[in-house]
């Protein structure tokens, strides 16, 4: 019988107890994996942000507009390579509950600035060539069954057309796919020029500017230059890196991160107790047996490894199953949510942290019983009864 077989036999001696304990561990790691997936989704904006992109918004609040003339003035700042702009549309499809992130953009520069929104060359050309067209994320296309060439009505809860209607009709010219994992393409975008000419108010204003700098090292200086340029004007600006902007946006949701930490911490505290307790029970029950093992020549060292090995195996089985279940759930959640909360993805980092915690859990819960088993005095143990 190999050492590992001995550990395995020990672990499954009391099947019911082991199954129950494994289940408890499974639950904790499934909770951990799913909550981490939520957290990733909320942070996906900040994580995939490019270091050389800056966002310029109205200083009072990012929901307020600024003149479109700012785009050309910002372009003259040394170190700025490319400038584009976007405007929030407050869009929805058919009913208000089908909320859409819809943006009126300057098509050419916007797509150049965001190479991670991938469009086949033919679709890109079609979009750039037709003012009344729209590009949509692949998830949304699937959700609402939009095909290339479809005419789709997009409603706005902010803007009105000159004729008083709140519905703009667009031709689907392209379907965007994410260029790498974590990139969020769950939005639609159309030509700002067309939007400006058909809306009844708003004039020559835009929502925000996006620009690419020559190098992230220049970001500080460029931000300061831009904000100084518009200081004391009716539309003061605030320039931030894209990452800082996205992070500030999720922070508005409040103490989500703290709550997640709290729950995961509570779940693990419980599991630690249950598993630790089971291991203690197991070793106590086997006092005689361990004494016999020692008598027939097992060293204290190998006894220690025997017990630690058992707790590690226990933690691994439950933990890996739990992480696996969280992975499966994340795929399901991504499909169900349609990207409304960002990109639901079970990241390799989450998996790695999970495995780290599994090892820590196994070591921690096994340590005390293993020490006790190792230091067991054979004579007292066998004499005890």
């Amino acid at each position, binding site marked *: 019988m190999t050492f590992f077989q001995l550990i395995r036999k020990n672990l499954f001696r009391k099947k*019911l*107890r082991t199954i*129950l*304990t494994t*289940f*408890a561990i499974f*639950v*904790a790691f*499934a*909770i951990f994996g799913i909550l981490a997936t939520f957290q990733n989704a909320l942070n996906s904006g900040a994580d995939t942000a490019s270091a050389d992109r800056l966002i310029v918004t109205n*200083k*009072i*609040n990012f*929901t*307020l507009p600024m003149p479109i003339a700012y785009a050309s003035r910002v372009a003259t700042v040394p170190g700025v390579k490319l400038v584009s702009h976007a405007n929030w549309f*407050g869009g929805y499809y058919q009913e*208000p509950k089908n909320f859409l992130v819809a943006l009126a953009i300057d098509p050419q520069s916007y797509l150049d600035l965001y190479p991670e929104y991938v469009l086949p060359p033919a679709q890109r050309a079609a979009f750039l060539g037709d003012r009344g067209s729209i590009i949509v994320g692949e998830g949304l296309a699937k959700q609402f069954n939009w095909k290339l060439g479809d005419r789709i009505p997009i*409603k706005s*809860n*902010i803007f009105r057309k000159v004729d008083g209607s*709140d519905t703009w009709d667009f031709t689907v010219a392209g379907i965007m796919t994410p260029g790498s994992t974590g990139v969020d393409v769950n939005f639609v975008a159309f030509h700002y020029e067309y939007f400006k000419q058909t809306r009844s108010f708003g004039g020559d204003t835009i929502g925000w500017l996006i620009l690419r700098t020559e190098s992230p090292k220049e970001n500080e200086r460029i931000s300061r230059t831009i904000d100084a340029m518009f200081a004391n004007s*009716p539309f*003061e600006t605030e320039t931030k890196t894209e990452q800082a902007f996205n992070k*500030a946006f999720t*922070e*508005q*949701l*409040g*103490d989500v991160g703290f709550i997640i930490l*709290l*729950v995961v911490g*509570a*779940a693990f*505290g*419980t*599991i630690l*107790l*249950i598993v*630790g*307790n*089971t291991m*203690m*029970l197991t070793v106590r029950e086997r006092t005689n047996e361990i004494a016999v093992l020692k008598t027939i020549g097992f060293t204290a060292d190998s006894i220690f490894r025997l017990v630690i090995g058992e707790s590690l195996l226990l933690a691994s089985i439950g933990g890996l199953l739990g992480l696996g279940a969280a992975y499966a759930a994340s795929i399901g959640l991504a499909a169900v949510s349609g990207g409304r909360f960002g990109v639901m993805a079970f990241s390799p980092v989450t998996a790695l942290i999970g495995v780290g915690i599994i090892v820590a859990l196994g070591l921690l819960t096994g340590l005390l019983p293993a020490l006790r088993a190792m230091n067991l005095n054979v004579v007292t143990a066998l004499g005890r009864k």
Partner: protein
Amino acid sequence: MARTLAQINAVTSMNLRSIPSRLWTSISTVVAVGIATGVLLSFLAMSNGFRSTVKGTGSPDVAIFLRKGGGGELNSIITREQVQLIEEAKGIAKGPDGKALLSAEMYSVVDGIKKSSGTKANLPLRGVGPNAVNVRRGIKISAGRMFQSGTAELVVGRAVSKQFKGFELGRTIRLASQNWKVVGEFEAGGSVFESEIWSDIAMLQGLYRRGSSVQTVRARMEDPNRLKELLAFSDADPRLKLDVKAETEFYANQSRGISDLILYLGWPLAIAMSFGALAGALNTMYASVDARMREIATMRAIGFGGLPAFVGTMTESLLLSAIGGVVGTLFAYLLFDGISASTLGSNFTQVVFSFKFTPELVVQGVFLSLIIGFAGGVFPAWRAARVPLLAAFREQ
């Protein structure tokens, strides 16, 4: 019958008195059940607090006029001419000056800095006239005074000054490219209005270059039933065609999204954690039965029935989880009751709310712990009831 009862009594008391010999296992069950209960209760209290803040906002006899299809106050726009038309509507109560009691208001978003995290968050800056307080009920200046029209003065809701930096009385704060003096703090019965900053509407219209347009109009109705008349009035006039809602209904709709989210996250989590705690409870109870195999078998041999063994084990399990439930509830209550938090409400601005425990929540928590206790006790108890007599002689 009487004998069975006496037996149950004896076995149960033996069970309970033997708990100290399984102290650590028993404590771990208590703690596991406690944590599961505590997590559930803190989520429920959060959801409950948010809902009661948002739902407690507004009165049924205040009608709110918004642009059609706009949804929130932020997206709405109403012209000066439309406000004048609304003044003519029947069913609106008259103020002391004999004019219709209505308040035309501007609603904009400014940045505040959260005290807890030091991060920026959207705060609503509402431009109001003198009638804002008359139309609403229960707005009370709790410190300082009301702002003076035509000056750069602000009053802030109690929740704002508690949660955000720089809103202390007498301080000057820069918002919307303008330095403002904080001259007062107001209470609004714990409603959403306490998360708002109020200033003079004319000042804001000037700052935002809005001319004479406003965003919403609130009107006090003679009684809540006049809403239909106002709606008909607005629909009949092509110059109006506005959405008209009772203020209570307006805020009730807004509360749904977020509190549902908290609720839908809280229950599944609590259920998952309960299963974890259940596994712990089962382990403990099986260990309890196993440790007393000989004892139980001996009792069976001298004439005790299976039922007392079952009840004894069951009682032990229920007692342990009930203690866990009570401890968890107490902890959650001490840690979280009354704690303030803020999150993004559906108007795209922060809503400050407090965690709120109610007796119903506590009942739900204890109920959950008893379910865990029952499920964790029933199988071990069944085993205890069917211990073979031979086990009495088995070497342990």
